């Protein structure tokens, strides 16, 4: 039907009639053509504006279908990767089960060498098969390499198996907002990385002006768009301002923004200590900080407080340990203070370069000289700074102090009238003395001089960390030692984890004469080490009768004999204490037990005098001396040649490190089993069998996990198919032409058009002239 335009009620002209008739014909033809087009394309719209709401729905549905189509591709690919892994594990499970059967056959004492050799060959064969399985690839991607899908995960390294993948996962979308793990790391199937050596030490990184705001509070930061409300009560009035901290990147930015945002007419000075913020205002005023609206920035900055005094000491902000954290900023705290000279632009902030109380209350003395220099006398705790009296600027003096090394110094911007004037004025003229300048120093400094001793798979590396400046340098030194160790920051971001990726190898971290490993919390042999974990979980068996002694220690004087009953000892420290506190040992103990200064073990220091040799003997009925590592297997007492003499002339006997760690993996089990089979160690074969069961369980569990995921994918796939049908149906309703409707419309319009043409022709034929 043509558009409806009112027809004049009085008269019509011929031109008007013809124009309207032509319009109607054109409109009808257009409508017919549109219907024909709809029928031929199957689409009821050619342009979205023909039915805007439906078209927009259709466009979104089309996009969704495209996206879902890709999602289904993802799902199929994920299915293939997981399916390929599942298949491979089926073979692994079978091989391990068969091997277990063979090992059980040779686990007894009455076994021929030939039988054992046959099982050894089978172990070798299974090892190779497992390494191959661990290196399985599908479509160019290693299935068990973690997130490093292009790196071959397992390889033989000497007599060990090294895992070079990681525990990461590759994920893919299996629905628009659903990520799915499309692989299983080899560590979850075969194992390959040892448990973490994670000490109980919180390395407690210092807060500094360069600390990123996002890393405080253990790495959770202070939220998005942070702001605080800062109030100063001057006595006469309370002034409040809102400080927007959203542009703060570092703690220095936070301090400057708070200082700049102080309420009008007030002044706030913010100090960044090793732990948190200290806000100060004028004496006589009180300062308080509250939250803005529902924010939590003040609390997260540790400065949420009611009015108290003119000083607000914030809480510990606990910065996260980062790769970029400087090693000098770990553990204890550094003393800090201010050298205040009269006037502006000349104050100096002094910070100790090392942690500890030793640098608290330092006295700074300015003496006159020809140029700027500094010296520190630890005896008098005095920093003497030579200056050109009345000439040396704060910047020059600070540079001299920093160059000396004991302290770092910078000009204080608080004292400056403008940015360019910071530290440009002369400090107080010499002689001048500033007493008790510093405070806040505490704790210990990381021992950078001694280094670490790392052992893995028989390879020992003494690591010199003196050149390391950051945590990452330290991690690189350990990772780069190339003995199959992995060092990383722990998930709590407060310490370091070290793990081994070498299966079949023993791994230890010990001291190199200092305290580095202990301070970093990565020493594998500490006072807290449980004896039950010795000897790869065998422990330290003591006499069956708990009243019987386990060790007999004889000093070189021959008269000091210590009988030690270890039945009550659970940890290394217990053993040390039992020796040191033995009634026969005297006070101070004649034979002092302590952790080994170099490497690991219990060190016995014999300070007695005599012609004899310090010995540790086995007490009948107890294997403790052997399992603690003092006495070799089969011997009855310690090897006299192992006794050394220290610088003080004391004899020193150090036990072997029997608390070795290892990568927990099926490869480790098989390599240990192989060694046990070669040595005919029946007990070890038995333990290996138990581990083999655990490995088998792990493989089966991993396979079950893969099966579960595959099942999950199948469920998702069915749902996606249903969704696809629904989406296409919805799209069809919006965009597809109703053919029946269209054809019936076409027919109706054809008739209408025909009628219209007929009436038009009839009308045009009618004329009065025909009747004249």
């Amino acid at each position, binding site marked *: 039907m043509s*558009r409806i*335009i009112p027809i*004049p009620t009085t*008269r*019509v*002209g*011929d*031109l*008007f009639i013809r124009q309207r008739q032509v319009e109607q014909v054109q409109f009808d033809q257009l409508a017919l053509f549109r219907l024909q087009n709809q029928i031929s394309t199957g689409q009821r*719209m*050619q*342009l*979205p*504006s023909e039915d*805007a709401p439906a*078209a927009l729905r*259709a*466009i979104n549905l089309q*996009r969704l279908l495209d*996206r879902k*189509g*890709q*999602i289904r*591709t993802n799902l199929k*690919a*994920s299915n293939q990767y997981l399916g390929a892994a599942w298949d491979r594990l089926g073979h692994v499970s079978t091989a391990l089960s068969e091997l277990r059967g063979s090992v059980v056959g040779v686990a007894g004492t009455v076994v021929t060498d030939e039988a054992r050799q046959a099982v050894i060959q089978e172990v070798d064969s299974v090892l190779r098969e497992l390494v191959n399985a661990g290196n399985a690839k599908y479509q*160019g*991607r290693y299935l068990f390499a*973690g*997130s*490093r*899908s*292009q*790196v071959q995960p397992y390889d033989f390294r000497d007599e060990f198996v090294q895992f070079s993948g990681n525990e*990461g996962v590759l*994920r*893919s*979308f299996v629905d*628009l*907002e659903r*990520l799915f793990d*499309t692989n299983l790391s080899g560590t979850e199937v075969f194992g390959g990385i040892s448990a973490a050596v994670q000490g109980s030490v919180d390395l407690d990184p210092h807060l500094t002006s360069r600390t*990123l705001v*996002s890393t405080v509070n253990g790495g959770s930061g202070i939220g998005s768009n942070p702001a605080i409300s800062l109030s100063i009560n001057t006595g006469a009035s309370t002034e409040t301002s809102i400080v927007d901290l959203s542009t*703060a990147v*570092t703690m220095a*930015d936070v301090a400057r*923004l708070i200082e700049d945002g102080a309420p009008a007419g007030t002044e706030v000075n913010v100090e960044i200590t090793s732990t948190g913020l200290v806000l100060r205002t004028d004496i006589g005023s009180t300062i308080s900080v509250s939250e803005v609206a529902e924010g939590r920035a003040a609390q997260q900055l540790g400065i949420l407080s009611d009015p108290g005094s003119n000083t607000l000491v914030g809480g510990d902000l606990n910065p996260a340990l*980062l*790769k*970029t954290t400087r090693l000098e900023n770990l553990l204890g705290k550094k003393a800090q203070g201010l050298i205040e000279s009269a006037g502006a632009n000349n104050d100096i902030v002094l910070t100790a370069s090392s942690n500890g109380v030793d640098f608290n209350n330092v006295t700074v003395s300015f003496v006159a000289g020809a140029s700027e220099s500094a010296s520190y006398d630890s005896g008098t705790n005095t920093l003497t700074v030579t200056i050109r009296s009345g000439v040396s600027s704060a910047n020059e003096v600070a540079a001299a102090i920093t160059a000396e090394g004991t302290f770092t110094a910078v000009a204080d911007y608080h004292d400056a009238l403008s*940015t360019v004037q910071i530290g440009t004025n002369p400090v107080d003229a010499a002689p001048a003395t500033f007493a008790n300048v510093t405070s806040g120093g505490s704790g210990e400094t990381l021992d950078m001089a001694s280094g670490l001793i790392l052992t893995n798979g028989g390879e020992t590396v003494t690591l010199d960390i003196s050149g390391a400046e*950051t945590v*990452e*340098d330290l991690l*690189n030194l350990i*990772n780069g030692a190339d003995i199959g160790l992995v060092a990383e920051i722990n998930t709590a971001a407060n310490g370091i984890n070290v793990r081994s990726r070498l299966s079949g190898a023993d791994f230890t971290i010990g001291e190199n004469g200092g305290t580095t490993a202990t301070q970093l919390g990565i020493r594998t042999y500490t006072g807290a080490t449980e004896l039950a974990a010795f000897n790869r979980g065998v422990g330290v068996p003591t006499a069956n009768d708990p009243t019987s002694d386990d060790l007999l220690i004889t000093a070189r004087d021959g008269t000091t004999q210590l009988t030690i009953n270890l039945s009550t000892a659970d940890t290394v420290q217990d053993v040390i204490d039992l020796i040191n506190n033995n009634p026969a040992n005297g006070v101070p103990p004649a034979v002092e037990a302590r952790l080994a200064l170099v490497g690991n073990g219990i060190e016995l220091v014999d300070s007695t005098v005599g012609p004899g040799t310090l010995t540790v003997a086995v007490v009948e009925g107890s294997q403790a001396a052997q399992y603690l590592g003092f006495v070799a297997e089969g011997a009855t007492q310690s090897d006299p040649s192992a006794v050394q003499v220290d610088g003080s002339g004391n004899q020193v006997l150090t036990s072997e490190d029997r608390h070795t760690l290892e990568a927990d993996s099926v490869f480790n089990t098989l390599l240990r089993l192989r060694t046990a089979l070669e040595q005919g160690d029946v007990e070890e074969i038995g333990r290996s069998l138990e581990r083999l069961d655990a490995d088998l369980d792990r493989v089966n569990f991993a396979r079950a996990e893969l099966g579960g995921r595959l099942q999950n994918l199948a469920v998702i796939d069915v749902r996606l198919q249903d969704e696809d049908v629904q989406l296409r149906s919805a799209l069809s309703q919006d*965009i597809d032409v109703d053919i029946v409707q269209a054809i019936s419309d076409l027919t109706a319009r054809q008739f209408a058009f025909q009628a219209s043409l007929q009436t038009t022709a009839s009308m045009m034929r009618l004329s*009065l*002239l025909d009747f004249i």
Partner: protein
Amino acid sequence: MSLFGSIQMGGNTLRAMQIGLQVVGNNIANANTPGYVRQEAIYVPAPVQRHGSLILGTGVLVDSIVQKIDSFVLERLVGAKGDRANAEVQEEVYREIEGILNELSEVDLSSALTGFFNSIHEVMLDPGNLATRNLAVGAGDNLARVIRELHGRVFDIQQELDQRVTAAADEINSLAEEIRLLNIQISSTEGGDTSSSQAGGLRVKRQGAVDRLSELVGISVNEQPSGGLSVAVGGEFLVFEGQRREVAVVNSSTSDLAYGVVEFADTHSAINTTGGELTGLYTARDETLGSFLDRLDELAGTLAFEFNKVYSQGQGLVGLQQLTSIETISDTSAALDAAGLAFTPISGALNIVVSSKTDTELTQTHEIFIDLDGIDQDTSLLSLAAQLDAIDGLSASVSGTGALQLSTDSTDLEFSFSDDTSGVLAALGLNTFFTGSTAATLGVNDEVKGIENAAKFAASSDGIDNGNGNAVLLAGFLEEPLESAGNASLVDIYNQLLNEVTQGASTAQSVAEGFRIFEGTLEGQRQSVSGVSIDEEAIKMLTLQRIYQASARYIQTITELLDLLVDL
């Protein structure tokens, strides 16, 4: 009255009927002439004569020939034509945009957009595969090309509309001149007697010019006592009887591009019109297309910057050894947020990791601070280069053109970026995927093009050749709420663009249709008064013929009477 007087009267009647028949004939001849106003001969009784005590009529006179016209309807029609022409330009332009967008098909921007992000899914599935990475780069290139072409086509329409503005100005001048000349001719023809509208043909011609002018620009028309028309546009006279003003096109400097605006040449005041094609051209060019291009720029800019912000923090299968920023800065010591970059970085920090090519696990991570809080010395390109240059193994400098250049000091070293909270990498074009900041300039970084560079595609987030973390983020980017866009996602922005076009097109069609119906109604009303009806003219013709025949018989009768007298 004498017999001769009677013959004279009959002769007069014959002449009057001939004139009437001529008018009818003229009407019939113009029955199909658009804009023609039918005419009518107005007959009045001839002056009377006193004959003794009698007063006798002397026949008929043609008083005048008048146009049958409803001036009120005509006036409204002038406005309706302008509104319709205005709306039809909008309708036409929206239809063109819809055609260019080509949504509901398989080759539209929507498909290119999803195609690109789908290709990143493929990288996510198989991050070690160079071919899938290369495919993703290709899909990104295709998306950028589609957006550029879309911009180009719409921009062409904008240019075409601008040319039509110039053509409209020329036509306005031409029509104004025509009306001015016709005003003079009509005045001189009718001699100031407007009641009879004698100069029918001239008036029709003038009305045609007025009609066309009203389609071009919203006008108001007043007929003066002299018969001349005054035509005003936006309250200012364009034509006043025998005078007119010239209009000219001047380039407007209000937008990035110079677009023509029609103004009076003498006063330089822009034509203030609210209807007509010219208004439609302005609206379509500056608002409809301008808004569309703005939205497209927003889409392209958001895609470039926000996508790059994520992308730039990722790492490829290989590290970087040399890198030059895509963007350059003329004032290298200015703070980066005031250095004129298309995208503005904020305060933040980023990590740059220098590693050995032979052992990528041995890394040196360096924090780079971007201080833009406006308090101290904010980070400039030079100070950023200095921070980077201080890193062992890395050299950084600012080129003469203001680009940041990075390179490793050894071929054994490579570097990568991560954790950029400032957006400076994306703003400077370092390790980015897209280049450009607008729809016209969007492209893909040459650094990742080609199979030889496919390994650089930053699919990892945990280090060089380590996982697909960044690909996961990028694959989900399409629906990710973006803070910079008020938490709208890229797909939301595109939907908004589509909504505006589709709803705009739909509305423009409805509005144009409404105006067409309104104009049609008025045209019907006009033609009901002014249109020629052949049948009606035939009746008139018959009537006139009959009168003519009767008058002739009357003359014959008088002649016979005269003959009788002569024969006496």
